[in-house]
């Protein structure tokens, strides 16, 4: 399994790219376009998934682990909207209840990646030449490994669990973000408004916190939304390889991995969780793009 959506991997933006981001960000403030249909649809999908994650009982009152062997492997029908699995568990209920874990992994991994990236990127961009060399070198090395490989390594060491997945995917995707933060910091610190703040007599830490950090990180927020979808896909990929959350859990990747055996007889076991992942990833990517365009004023 390769990494779907790898075309949106942050690695494609070299240090030269971010330099222009702030200029376009400025122009982006002025634009206020009406939301497109795709944006609204994405919001609807994410709203549904958010409710599923926070209060799954509202959408699917049943028990996701209730075994009804008499109703095993039923195709989608009125009673079982999306069919049942080999143990007769309702797939709709399981997908809804699995949202929380999948989203936790997606958001957690992205948050971790961003936190690491901002720390390393800012240290590299603002620290001296030696700090920059050391961090930059380390990032280059880490960057050379595919995210999946790093994640597999960590899971192999720590054993599969949600927490491990968050850490594994988070660390795996941090180097790409870190390089972007560094580039942004280097671009922003040369902006006249940073110099103007220094000329007013503000201490350096205040200039960094008030101007450099927010303006360097802002364009990344949009990219981070893309990262959430991607993290879910990676976590699912790990689960599919048997390195993710253990089977009884309705986590989407685990569902995919469990349904693998029945793919020829019960297609819905693969297609439904797969579609859930794709829908969330696409919705987040769409919103991320919209956000990016609003913030940067970039053409679509």
């Amino acid at each position, binding site marked *: 399994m390769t990494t779907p959506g790898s075309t949106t991997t942050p690695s494609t933006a070299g240090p030269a790219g971010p330099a222009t981001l*702030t200029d376009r*960000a*400025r122009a982006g*403030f*002025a634009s206020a376009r009406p939301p497109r249909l795709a944006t609204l649809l994405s919001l609807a999908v994410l709203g549904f998934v958010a409710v599923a994650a926070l209060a799954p009982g509202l959408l699917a009152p049943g028990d996701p682990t209730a075994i009804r062997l008499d109703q095993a492997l039923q195709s989608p029908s009125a009673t079982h909207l999306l069919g049942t699995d080999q143990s007769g568990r309702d797939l709709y209920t399981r997908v809804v209840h699995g949202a929380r874990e999948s989203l936790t992994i997606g958001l957690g991994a992205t948050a971790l990646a961003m936190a690491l990236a901002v720390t390393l990127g800012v240290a590299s961009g603002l620290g001296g030449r030696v700090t920059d060399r050391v961090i930059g070198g380390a990032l280059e090395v880490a960057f050379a490994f595919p995210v999946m490989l790093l994640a597999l390594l960590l899971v192999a060491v720590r054993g599969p669990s949600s927490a491990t997945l968050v850490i594994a995917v988070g660390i795996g995707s941090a180097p790409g973000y870190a390089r972007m933060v560094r580039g942004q910091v280097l671009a922003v610190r040369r*902006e*006249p*408004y940073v*110099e*103007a*703040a*220094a*000329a*007013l*007599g*503000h*201490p*350096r830490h205040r200039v960094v916190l*008030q*101007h450099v950090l*927010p*303006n360097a990180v*802002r364009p990344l927020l949009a990219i981070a939304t893309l990262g959430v979808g991607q993290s879910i896909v990676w976590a699912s990929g790990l689960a599919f390889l048997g390195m993710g959350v253990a089977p009884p859990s309705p986590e989407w990747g685990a569902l995919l991995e469990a349904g693998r055996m029945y793919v020829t007889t019960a297609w819905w076991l693969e297609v439904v969780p797969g579609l859930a992942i794709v829908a969330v990833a696409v919705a987040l990517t769409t919103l991320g793009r919209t956000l990016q365009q609003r913030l940067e004023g970039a053409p679509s």
Partner: protein
Amino acid sequence: MTLALTDAAPGTRTLPERRGTPMLRVENLRVGFGRGAERTEVVRGVSFELSPGRCLAVVGESGSGKSVTARTLVGLTGRGSHVRADRLELDGADLLGLGERAWRRVRGRRIGMVLQDALVSLDPFRTVGAEIAEPLRLHRWGSRSERAARVLEVLEEVGVPEPGLRARQRSDELSGGLRQRALIASALALDPRLVIADEPTTALDVTVQAQVLDLLAASKRRGTAVLLISHDLSVVARLADEVCVMRDGEVLEHGLTEEVLRRPAHPYTRSLLDAVPSAATRGARLAPSTPGARLRATPAPAPGPTVEERPVLTATDLVKRFRGPDGVERTVVDGVSFELAAGETLGIVGESGSGKTTTARLALALLEPDGGEVLLDGAPWSAASPAERRPRRRRVGVVYQDPLSSFDPRWDVARVLADAAATDLEPPRGPAAVRARSVELLEQVGLGAEHLARHPLRLSGGQRQRVAIARALAPRPDVVVCDEPVSALDVSVQAQVLDLLTDLQRSLGVAYLFISHDLGVIHHLSDRVLVMKDGHVVEEGATEEVLTAPRHEYTRRLLSALPALPGAPGPRREAHDPR
């Protein structure tokens, strides 16, 4: 031969007979953008004619529609534009309604276009030779070797030294002047009948500007018609035979250059001419009335601000070196010394690369010199530690060329001013005090409390620069370093901002270290002047002495390169005092 303008608009003049028949005829040109009710017309009924070997200048400020007019003539008005005209002809052939394919046959071959910024207009990845050969190639002109020969020929024509070498270089290896000439060479490569030059000298130093204008004049003498788009009246005076003054998409005045510039018929032309700062405007106001300048208690034109002989900023033998990307160390500022007394204006004039901005940053102690020292109020400034400097930074303010990039893009005006005002109001005195101070600052610069909630993006260029000045004044500084503060502004806005700076100096007694490449601005404003070249001060002294009787050869060259407006502005100024 009929008159160029048949409708009797105000300011229309009868044009005398011309040489030859017009090759370009534009009648009642209208260009709009958008659809239906949302359509806005940016060019509203423009008419002119242009004959071979003549130059027509279309003059106006931003938003006047001059550039759109020029773009219409090469079919590049862009998406969503709607072009109508009673007549739009080049050599009798209709240009109206040409398709993209047909336009491509016209562009480059029959109409050459020179754009403003050569750095952006030239492809950084191609050699200059390939760039100039492109129109030839696109129009299937000659064989490969013939094209190569033609490239060298045009480069020679536009006065590029060593054309063989230059043709093999890329645009970033050339100086600004050479780049602009390469661009002109590419426009002239196919020997077009008409050359459209859109602000061809705006980004250039005076001496280079003079060369570029000479070049266009030479091609005019060879029979090419030149349509010059410019906001700079002195450039127009140097090259154009006729002038067309535009505002809000309409032609306000059209006539022979001499006539229009000497005896402008339209009040707007007059105000444009008056707004040009020069030796003759010293001590006078440039703008007819600065809108909303509420502070102006002393309108009487005092001969000059009262200068106390107390030096606030003293620089001795400043040296600054930078290591270039090639690892070679260059001395950017070399032995610069100056003294800035309280309440006076010291101008620093020089071309790009002369080290004037580096000098400004050294004065601000944002850069530490490699040699020499800066004193603030007689106490160490450049030699002080950052912690010692910080509380004293409020004594020295700064105003940059591009105000927009000097504001944090996330901040509105209120936040920008509150942040600056907080440095003065210590201990922090609460939001009400900060707001009161912000409003006071805005009023000082001729804006009002209603601008507080705006984002700088939603302000005009002049308003932005006013906010930047307000921010610089917030900590009540003794010195404000102004680094090209009016270079990015339209003439009339520049006039208002210069007037404002003069007023503020009178009422607040601040001293200015005023950096500019524009000799007119420096002459208008400075008490004393420093002429810089290649990091050295080549001449310094009282402005009147240095700029009217220059001793150094370089200063003389700068002055002679400066295009001058015809006519004496003195009597004209009194003749039409508006109110």
